[in-house]
């Protein structure tokens, strides 16, 4: 079966959109790392954790995740379907590509 040939290089706009999707995929991984971090702070066996500061930390991470997701959401919501026909790089116009 013939496959659609995917373009190798993209225009600046499409390139940005792809990286936005990458960011959206990476965000939960970053979040997972940050919320699992407290595990390492209090080795089991030690006395009770510092609830106040742990709480401050967790809620800061939480807020940051919400803010990042909010920053990414508008770009992702207006995302075109996966097709990248329009993404073909017009070499002739000499646009910036990477």
């Amino acid at each position, binding site marked *: *079966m*013939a496959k659609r040939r995917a373009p190798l290089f993209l225009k600046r706009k499409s390139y940005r959109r792809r990286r936005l*999707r990458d960011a*959206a*995929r990476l*965000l*939960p*991984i970053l*979040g*997972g790392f940050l*919320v*699992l971090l*407290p*595990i390492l*702070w*209090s080795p*089991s066996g*030690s*006395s*009770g*954790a*510092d*609830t*106040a*500061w*742990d*709480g401050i930390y*967790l*809620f800061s991470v*939480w*807020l940051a*995740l*919400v*803010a*990042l*997701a*909010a920053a*990414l*959401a*508008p770009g*992702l*919501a207006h*995302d075109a*379907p*996966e*097709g990248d026909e329009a993404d073909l790089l017009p070499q002739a116009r000499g646009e910036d590509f990477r």
Partner: protein
Amino acid sequence: MPFNLLVLFCLCYVVMLFLVAFLAERRAAVGRIGWLRSPVIYTLSLSIYCTAWTFYGAVGYAARSGLEFVTIYLGPTLVFVGWWWVLRKLVKIGRQQRVTSIADLISSRFGKSNLLGVVVTLIAVVAATPYIALQLQSVTLSFAVFASGTPEGWALPNRDATAVWVAGGLALFTILFGTRNLDAKEQHHGVVLAIAVEAVVKLVALLAVGAFVVWGIGGGLGAVFAKIGAASIPDWVIKPDRWFGMIAVSGAAVICLPRMFQVMVVEDGDERHMALASWAFPAYLMLMSLFIVPIAVIGLERMPAGANPDMFVLTLPLAEGQAGLAMLAFLGGFSSATSMVIVESIALATMVSNHVVMPLWLRLAPQSAMSGDVRRIVLLARRLSIIGVLALGYLYYRMSGGSVALAAMGLIAFAGVAQVLPVLLGGIFWRGATKSGAVAGLLTGFCVWAFTLFLPFFGPDAVLSQAVFDQGLMGAGWLRPQALFGVTGMDPLVHSLFWSAALNTAAFCIVSLLTFPGPVERMQGAAFVNVFDADAAGPQGWARGRAEPEALLVMAQRILGEDQALALFEAEARAQGKGGYLPDATPDFVAGLERRLAGSVGAATAHAMISQIVGRATVSVEDLMAVANETAQIMEYSAQLEAQREELTRTAGALREANEKLKQLSVQKDAFLSQISHELRTPMTSIRAFSEILTEGDLPPELVANYGRIIHDEAIRLTRLLDDLLDLSVLENGSVQLNIGLVNLQPLIDRALASAQHTRPERDFTVLRDLPTESLFLRTDGDRLVQVFINLISNARKYCDAGTPELKISVRQRSGRVHVDFIDNGTGIAKQSQGIIFEKFARLTDQSRAGGAGLGLAICREVMANLGGQVTYLPGRGGAAFRVTLPLRIGQQAA
């Protein structure tokens, strides 16, 4: 506050919810949906994740285990923030396949298997029942708090009666607004809006209590912060396994909980809504959790030692004399509980009616798919299921005695529904996942969960005997419910999660790898996994069935209702270019109709009903392959056509070139013929004229001799011309016989110079040579080469117009080829003529017709071509310059 007032408030609130739902339904009914389907409403409706468990239980949880409660909200936060991974795909699939519940999604993905639908329904019902009981319990408890707290000493007469009332009211609301429409995809606007309102109420209530606790009685942020730091929460230490396990299980649950699936995918799934929810829902969760710890700490500090921390949200304001705030908190808790129960029971009822009741009914009365009023039966089944689900919850509440901690019950339910996750993820990302694998995984996970977590929860000797706890099932030590396979020392929840997830996933993967999926499974698998590929629609299952459109219409009317079915059929008929209400039952149409029906009764039932009419239960593997082959063949065919087209273009180009060449050749041939006839006629004319004169006789003998000589000369000229022509034709045909041998270049040039002496012998020519370089052995045809040299030297002798003519002959050897240059010191050949001198009969001047017919250079060119070399004109060498190039050994290409 008098208890009666509370009941009155509560009733008012419920009436308001009914009104909201009613107005929303009416608005939607007249088509003014507008903001009813906005992302904000969507996000708010997702808040049913926060049940009474959150509202009351989180504070209790925090009072017992510190910050561990946030894991329940961090899991969903990560899932929503990472919506691009899973939720986006789920929502898209849900919309495309008109999924009615999570059981329907799983059943539809694995070949519309009803068995899977039943298994998932079973898991969901078993896991949700305690959860519903939990909500009933929390409402009852909150009533009790008010009752016992009243100064009048008014005691709640009977907790069970309260629970019955609450359950009954909820059932009424759910049936009224949850089963108005049959098609789940038509959305329960009323219910969703009521939930959204309740979401606001519970958030406002919790924030208000929090604010009151922090600023009202806690003494401001700083003081509360210090108190939190100083508070001694006995169990609070981060246990890595529990921390990780709870984040994972809550993340899984937010996807798999039937009620979450209902609002997230079924009610109003849309990618744009999802984008807002991706951050707004985590923000909502964060706000809900914000004041939990302060409330818990202040509550522990101020409330008497025996107070139930689960009720701090309510009891703190009450104890501080804030009746209004307590009222608000009560409404918040009430909202949390009711919204959860309503949606959960809708979701479960949909599953039960679509996957248990309908298939049973179809099995028992197959003909009624055609005759009975399916619509009424489905709705009835759904209503009965709602009542059944709530009754189960109530029964559970009665049996468990309403004594257990809220949080523990919720977590058990989470772990139960999380068993669906491996199959769900496998189903949407892995085409190799099979139905048998899914059944194996789900059953394994369910059994392990039930054995290690659910049943032990009731305590020793309740369901499982103490002996089983101590010695394992049937005395097998490695089958102890809380130390499976000898793994001891783990937290029971983590232990159960660990083993159920591991065994579930393993069974699912291994059985999937070993079994072969059926055709419908493979079709659905491709459609689910490749849901974002627009062109991956896949083959249609009904390609070869034969369906009577009228029968289809009759059935569709029974499920969708007459108006809707007629509208659907009419639209399709118009799309097919036909009038009336009966379109052709094309495979596309039948598949579309099936999806539409699936939106009402579930994929498995819809499939079964359609197959009753279309006449074939399933599509066969051969059909699938045939369709796939056809597609492949068409693709291949078009690729071939493409290749052929390119080849044709190339051929056409070549043909055009050839045609061009032929035309030129034709012109050349005409010119050649006219030239040659001219060349032949001139001597013939003079021969004829002189021979005529001779035949008349009586001529003086000297004249006769003179004329005879002229005739002879002309005859020689003719002969030479004919010889040249013959030579040329032989050379051009390539059929010349070459006499190849080893020759030295120097004697060849000597011979050529000697022969050329006869051309214009009166001219005195200086020949410049470099003898040592000429001493070069070649393997070629010497005589032919001499012929070329003679020609070139004669030409120089003939046409060199210098006063003291000179001819320079130089020989050079370059990479296996020999260059012999003949350069004279005349004016040379004009640039425009350089291209034609090698053509036949090309003569630059007429003045010195030294007997040549203009064939000399043409012959040279042909000879050299036959010798594997060439003769070219060298421009810019002062005079006329010709270069003869030939290989050292004939037949040898240039290195």
